[in-house]
């Protein structure tokens, strides 16, 4: 083999096998070729019609902008629908129980599969962009739009499409029945369609110029908003990517470790960026945004954590550190119910602490953000642990209730806790003039189980006391559950030798 051939061979080895396979198939696919030709034809038609039919195209100061909007809307609509659906359906088909693709039985890692699918989607997007970008850049020659905006739009658009692809892959990874997959697919389609409108809105704001995000602020506010939007989108895509990989891994694997490390890193870096941004801009909004996003995110994570495994197989136990402090940290980050709950609740507490410390210095006008953040943490903990307690009680009564469905129970409890008092109230007061909103304003105890009312300043203290006591009680009742898992979280002493097997069969 020649030197050049050897280099090509080595490069080829570095390429993700999924990318090689999918691109080979995509190149042969009539759908992909058809879409590519369709793009060229339609965009050519849009530009030609715009120039031929609009007499003012040569003189108008916004002709370029209008044409860019038309081209971009068409491109995004087709891309954000076609590429994610194509990628998601392929993976779902390959993972279906009846025809599970044998690549899942090879030594290729779960991460490489998801990365490969993403890279393939990125290549298809690049292919479509190669057909669209020249037309978009052409609009600069007409007036009303500049090149940086065009490239920022294309970049943001690509990110949206890849976000939608990652979301579609995430849904395709979820192991569930065919009927549930259809519902998941419909849900995914709704989310992706909402992303189309969100992209259009973002694009409209970008066209409107500097002043759409965090209210004004000149170029700093304009580009700061674009960069923030891009960064947040990229981080969200990263998170969905890690979760998808975790789902694809075998149940015996330490699935949650990479997810928790990633989330913790993003949360810490996000906190530092928010603090620095707030100090530089003398504005508490970035910290407030970080705190509220973190509170909602970790509250959701608590529900997932309480549904995790409660014992560890040899595979995870081989990785548990022997050094006690390292083991304590590992307990928080490794897959496991109690560790996950502690990890999420610790992050919630630290977020609240940070926001409480920053509060007097940066944003004296905040309306109870530290209290709301604390309330969200306590409600999530209370509902999650109550669900865990109920599940264990039901299991003790002999009913089969797998731990991985605890989150369903927690959500049901939260829904019942929030809606049931209202329904009871409506039944009892039917035909009278009393109304529920008055009870909310009067901070009636009936409204305490509903976390949404934390938003009301009236009675917030009483609500916090209620949920604090509730969380304390269920935490105390869950202590045996925590202790059992802490005790079981021990490294494997030695490799179990395969049992001698004299008989050939039986």
């Amino acid at each position, binding site marked *: *083999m020649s030197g050049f051939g050897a280099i090509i*061979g*080595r490069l*080829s*080895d570095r390429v993700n*096998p999924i990318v*090689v*396979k999918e691109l*080979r*198939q995509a190149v*042969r*696919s009539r759908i992909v070729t058809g879409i590519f030709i369709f793009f060229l034809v339609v965009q050519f038609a849009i530009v030609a019609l715009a120039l031929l039919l609009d007499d003012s195209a040569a003189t108008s100061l916004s002709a370029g902008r209008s044409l860019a909007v038309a081209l971009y809307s068409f491109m995004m609509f087709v891309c954000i629908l076609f590429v994610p659906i194509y990628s998601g359906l392929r993976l779902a088909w*390959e993972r279906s*129980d009846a*025809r*599970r*693709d*044998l*690549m*899942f*039985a*090879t*030594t*290729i*890692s779960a991460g490489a599969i998801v990365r490969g699918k993403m890279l393939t989607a990125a290549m298809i997007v690049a292919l479509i962009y190669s057909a669209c970008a020249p037309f978009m850049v052409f609009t600069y020659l007409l007036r009303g739009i500049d090149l940086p905006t065009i490239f920022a739009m294309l970049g943001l658009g690509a990110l949206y499409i890849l976000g939608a692809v990652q979301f579609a892959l995430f849904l395709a990874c979820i192991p569930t029945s065919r009927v549930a997959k259809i519902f998941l697919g419909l849900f995914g389609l709704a989310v992706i369609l909402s992303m189309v409108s969100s992209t259009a809105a973002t694009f409209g704001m970008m066209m409107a110029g500097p002043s759409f995000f965090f209210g004004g602020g000149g170029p700093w506010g304009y580009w700061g908003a674009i960069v923030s939007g891009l960064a947040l989108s990229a981080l969200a895509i990263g998170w969905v990517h890690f979760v998808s990989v975790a789902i694809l891994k*075998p*149940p*015996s694997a330490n699935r949650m470790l990479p997810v928790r490390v990633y989330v913790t890193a993003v949360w810490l870096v996000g906190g530092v960026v928010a603090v620095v941004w707030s100090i530089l801009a003398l504005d508490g909004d970035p910290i407030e945004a970080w705190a509220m996003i973190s509170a909602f995110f970790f509250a959701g994570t608590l529900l997932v954590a309480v549904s995790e495994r409660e014992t560890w*197989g*040899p*595979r995870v136990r081989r990785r548990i550190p022997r050094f006690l402090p390292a083991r304590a940290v590992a307990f928080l980050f490794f897959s496991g119910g109690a560790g996950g709950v502690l990890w999420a609740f610790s992050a919630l507490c630290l977020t609240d602490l940070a926001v409480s410390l920053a509060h007097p210095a940066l944003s004296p006008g905040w309306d109870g953000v530290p209290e709301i953040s604390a309330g969200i943490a306590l409600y999530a903990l209370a509902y999650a642990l109550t669900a865990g307690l109920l599940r264990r009680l039901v299991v003790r009564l002999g009913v089969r209730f797998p731990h991985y469905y605890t989150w369903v129970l927690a959500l049901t409890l939260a829904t019942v806790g929030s809606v049931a008092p209202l329904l009871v109230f409506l039944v009892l007061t039917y035909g009278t003039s009393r109304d529920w909103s008055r009870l909310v304003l009067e901070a009636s105890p009936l409204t305490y189980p509903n976390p949404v009312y934390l938003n009301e300043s009236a009675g917030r203290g009483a609500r916090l006391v209620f949920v604090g006591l509730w969380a304390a009680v269920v935490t105390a009742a869950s202590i045996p559950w925590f202790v059992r898992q802490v005790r079981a979280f021990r490294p494997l002493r030695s490799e179990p*030798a*395969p*049992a001698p*097997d004299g*008989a*050939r*069969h*039986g």
Partner: protein
Amino acid sequence: MHVRVENLTRHFGRTRAVDGISFSFESGHIVGFVGPNGAGKTTTLRILATVDEPTSGDAFMDGVSAVEDPEKARHLVGFMPDQVPAHGDMTVHEYLDFYARAYGIRDPRRTQIVGSVEEFAGLVQLRDKTVVALSKGMKQRISLARAIVHDPAVLLLDEPAAGLDPRARIELRELLRLLADQGKAILVSSHILTELSEICDDAVIIERGKIVGAGTVDDLLTRDTSRRLVRIRTLASLEDLLKAVIQIPGVDDGRIDGRCVTVTVGGDESACRTILATLVRQGVPVVEFTHQRADLEDVFMSVTKGQTQ
């Protein structure tokens, strides 16, 4: 290589597809995995191949667990499912090259291995054809080539001979023998029991998710020694022979079978000697008296009830 299946169970809702089965096999052996439709053969093979997960139990390849360490187990196992390759729009060479890449085999070794696997499976002439354009037999060959592309120590073949013509079956049988001689442990599920009895060293018979018989093929064929089939040919009338033989003590059953009479003898070889002596004494002109050896199909029929779930 020692493969050990321990208390393997797989439930689909209320159905127990595999119900606590245990067996083991070694390198260089071909083990037939026999059972009616719905017995749990494919489910067991899929679990061993780490394509599916058991409800409980485990399978070990030289101590590597298919449940705890599926990634490690995948290095050791090659799986040929009963379905034809899914990627119809790829060429044979691209298909095998993809799987070689997926197993982390790097160039120039990959090119060499894919080439030799194509040669072994007789696919050299077809390497540039798309998979979808090939016959069922050729697709089976591609499937086998894919299963061995990473040189696994254990081969799991699910109905490899289904849909093949007689020549392809013979070729497949030779390929499997060759692989076993190379030291691979091979587990083959099949309905074509005559084929299995010719190539298998051992057999495991499964029904409704449970093992109902297991052992070496010779052992299984001779296990039921209390009953044997004897084929008798005479120059006289077959009806007269049947009438005569059925009255001899030790003969349980008899029937005219073409140009001879086949009787079931409840007893050992001395019972057969007594029957022959009696017939000769009665002046029956016997020209053939053969002990008919049971085949795997007879064993299968005697140990299974034909129940599915």
